[in-house]
């Protein structure tokens, strides 16, 4: 049944947009699918508490543009979009062997970029 289990990766923001659209569309119709409604509701509920709520397409694009010079993998950048690192510790967790691959200035530059582009979530 499956052709390719990992055709592409989606960031939280994209999933949120798709699900929200789906929710709006199905609400117009009288009949709703129970399991689809459950899983979209629960997923949107989870995503609402993450940073993707305040992100926009332009922000993510600008962020990835700025990240190009650091030679990180696609996955590492995806994680940074999903959970923007605001401390050195968080970068160490996301980037493997970060001490060797990133200089101290790089780490600070990434944190500055995150703080500049993504607004701090209201806690």
């Amino acid at each position, binding site marked *: 049944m499956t052709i390719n289990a990992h055709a*592409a990766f989606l960031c939280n923001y994209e999933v949120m947009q798709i699900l929200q659209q789906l929710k709006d569309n199905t609400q117009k119709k009288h009949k709703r*699918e129970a399991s689809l409604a459950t899983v979209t509701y629960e997923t949107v*509920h*989870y995503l609402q508490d993450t940073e993707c709520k305040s992100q926009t397409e332009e922000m993510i694009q600008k962020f990835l543009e700025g990240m190009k010079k650091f030679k990180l993998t696609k996955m590492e950048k995806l994680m940074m979009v999903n959970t923007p690192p605001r401390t050195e510790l968080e970068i160490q*967790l996301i980037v493997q062997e970060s001490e060797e691959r990133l200089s101290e200035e790089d780490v600070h530059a990434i944190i500055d970029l995150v703080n500049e582009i993504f607004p701090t979530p209201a806690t």
Partner: protein
Amino acid sequence: MFVLSEMKDVIRVTPEHFHQSLSESITTLLNRKLANKVVLNVGLCIALFDITHIGHSYIFPGDGSSHTEVKFRYIVFRPIVEEILIGKIRSCSRDGVHVTLGFFEDILIPVNALQHPSRFDETDQAWVWEYPKGEGEKHDLFMDSGESIRFRVTSEVFEESLPTGPLGTECPVQTIAPYRIIGGINEPGLGLLTWWEAQEQNDVGNDIDDQENDE
């Protein structure tokens, strides 16, 4: 955390759906079939992304339905191993800490992947990280349910689950989780979000004391 999976399937559209357009009924049927279900070695299916190909439809003798081969892409929850996720503690038990993401609950952080040294508090039913302060003293950091926790995905387990019997029958069906994620928090920066927020301000002790007094 979320991926797109390409899949193909033969969709049986029953005559009562013939008044709809084919793509509309396929969307409904695929979502009914897959949404909120785990596909073996794929992950937890969330919602249909798009239909990439609709083949010819066939009608078989003795069945008024049309059968159509479709290729489509589905949004699937399948965090990759090593990914960092943030969830909430569902409960603690002797096996470790159970974490939930709201839409996915079968996440376990086993005892050997907790911060070291940790102990299980029987009265509170919670795991406690005995954070060493030096000079033999330690701080007890409780992992209460409902707290936000950051963890690393260390492995994933898929298990074939058996179909359940029809409703109302007394069928002994063992309920096993078809897809489980094993996580770990035994690295600096992982664990409850509040642990590390406090440390950034360089006064761990005071902050934690404050929190405990508040409770």
